[in-house]
């Protein structure tokens, strides 16, 4: 199947000579939620801006919904909705007018029923006649999403959509994004909340210093690079890790009451069984045990630091 977003050998060099993107190659499939992660200044927003037509590319080729973003810009841009990072709105306009303006700008005939649906879905219907300046920050964020959805795009870019919004609204937005995906909308998400990517994304891309360093299915990534931790709460205090376990990835907690065993998700079965057998053989008793899986955040931090060091 043809990808909804296809980026080939994309480079962006700014006037001063700074190279923001270095030979980016990336395909994003129809109907998936793709999370693009990266530290500040990694090039996430530059890439989104190029795909959406806000920034010119230096070289390479980008296609959106099968259309070249330069040669066939009308069709390419018409298929994209963008929710930018900043809350850029025309303060004096009403909510209804602002959303209707966006729909018209994208070449769509007026459709009050659709605008009403979008506003209701985003809990903005009651505020439709209010001026934007009277809305709270969270409502303005919803308005940005309403504007992006006004022309029924098949691809939606969410550039840090939940930055600065409260937990409840964040959960609402996640729910809305899932619904959009069910309707077949392709969603590209950049976020600083790794929890958000972990919660929603189908695939993860990591960008660092203008280069894509990894693109992976989220579950595979978690399983491949994720670590598990087994903590055994001991019956009696130990002074040091027993000699029989010296070759295992085992650490002793500071108080001497916990043995911490770290292992790859893929190798858990054999290692845990061996550890527990050895403990039984040498007579170390434990009262409780619990396991913890590393979060996407830990994987992300590890990846970025690894690349930086490498």
């Amino acid at each position, binding site marked *: 199947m043809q990808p909804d977003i296809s980026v080939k050998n994309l480079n962006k060099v*700014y*006037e001063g000579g700074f190279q923001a993107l270095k030979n980016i190659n990336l395909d994003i499939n129809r109907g998936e939620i793709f999370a693009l992660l990266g530290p500040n200044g990694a090039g996430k927003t530059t890439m989104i*801006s190029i795909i*959406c*037509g*806000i*920034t*010119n590319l230096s070289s390479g080729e980008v296609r959106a919904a099968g259309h070249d973003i330069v040669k066939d*810009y*009308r*069709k*390419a*841009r*018409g298929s*994209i909705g*963008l929710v*930018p990072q*900043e809350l*850029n*709105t*025309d*303060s*004096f*306009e009403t909510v209804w*007018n602002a959303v*209707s*303006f*966006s*729909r*018209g*700008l*994208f*070449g*769509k*005939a*007026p459709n009050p029923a659709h605008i009403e649906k979008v506003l209701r879905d985003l809990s903005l219907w009651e505020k439709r006649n209010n001026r934007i300046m009277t809305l709270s920050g969270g409502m303005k964020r919803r308005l940005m999403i309403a*504007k992006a959805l006004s022309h029924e795009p098949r691809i939606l870019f969410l550039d840090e959509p939940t930055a600065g919004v409260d937990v409840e609204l964040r959960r609402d937005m996640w729910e809305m994004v899932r619904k959009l995906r069910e309707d077949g909308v392709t969603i590209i998400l950049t976020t600083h909340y790794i929890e958000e990517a972990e919660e929603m994304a189908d695939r993860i891309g990591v960008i660092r210093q203008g280069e894509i360093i990894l693109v992976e299915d989220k579950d595979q990534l978690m399983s491949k690079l994720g670590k598990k931790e087994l903590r055994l709460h001991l019956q009696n205090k130990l002074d040091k890790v027993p000699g029989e376990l010296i070759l295992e990835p085992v650490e002793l907690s500071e108080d001497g009451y916990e043995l911490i065993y770290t292992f790859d998700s893929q190798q858990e079965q054999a290692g845990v069984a061996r550890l527990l057998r050895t403990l039984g053989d040498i007579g170390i008793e434990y009262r409780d045990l619990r396991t913890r899986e590393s979060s996407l955040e830990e994987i992300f931090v590890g990846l970025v630091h690894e690349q930086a060091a490498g």
Partner: protein
Amino acid sequence: MNFYGVKAIYNFEMSRMRRTLMQSVLSPVISTCLYFVVFGSAIGSRMGNIDNIEYAAYIIPGLVMLSLLMQSISNASFGIYMPKFSGTIYEVLSAPVSYVEVVLGYVGAAATKSVILGLIILATARLFVDYSVLHPFWMLSFLILTAVTFSMFGFIIGIWADGFEKLQIVPMMIVTPLTFLGGTFYSIDMLPEIWQTISLFNPVVYLISGFRWAFYGVSDVHVGISVGMTLLFLLACMSGIWWIFKTGYRLRT
């Protein structure tokens, strides 16, 4: 052609005019009326006729042109500068609209506002001064052509400006003096020969002269030259806008 896109921009700009009726319409109308009262009724009654036209009536085309130029520039420059300032320009840049359509929307709205304003001022002038329009078609044509041309000029200023001060510099420091020295209050034939020659380098002379011809059939320069010069300036503005969008100057990085 993205008709709905052009309409969206046009309506958005016209709605801004409705929101700011005092500033957009009433303020320039009152200012111009004050000119009519002071220079027309009060001082004008003590002045002689120029080209056999009563002084109060003689200055009407120039005063309308002064408002038209200022408002065209101001409307169009604010129209495109405000989205840049507030950051909402991202939406126009990411929309499936060509630069011709963007210009049609912004410049079309700015020119419409200016023409409406020009007509209101003309109607208001009738309350103070008795005047006639010899060539109504040409009067309207000059009005529209000038509004479109200077709205384009204003659009360029709005793109170029990176602060509110720059938005004001060109209208206040260049256009206003050129208009005052361009024959609003006198015929350039009344000037010493050297100043007549210098005046011919002032593009506003051609606008006012042509506009006055449409009213009274008298002009400082031939009406054909006036039309030609206005079209030339229009062409220069169109070239400037074409270059801006081609290079993305101050719009796209």
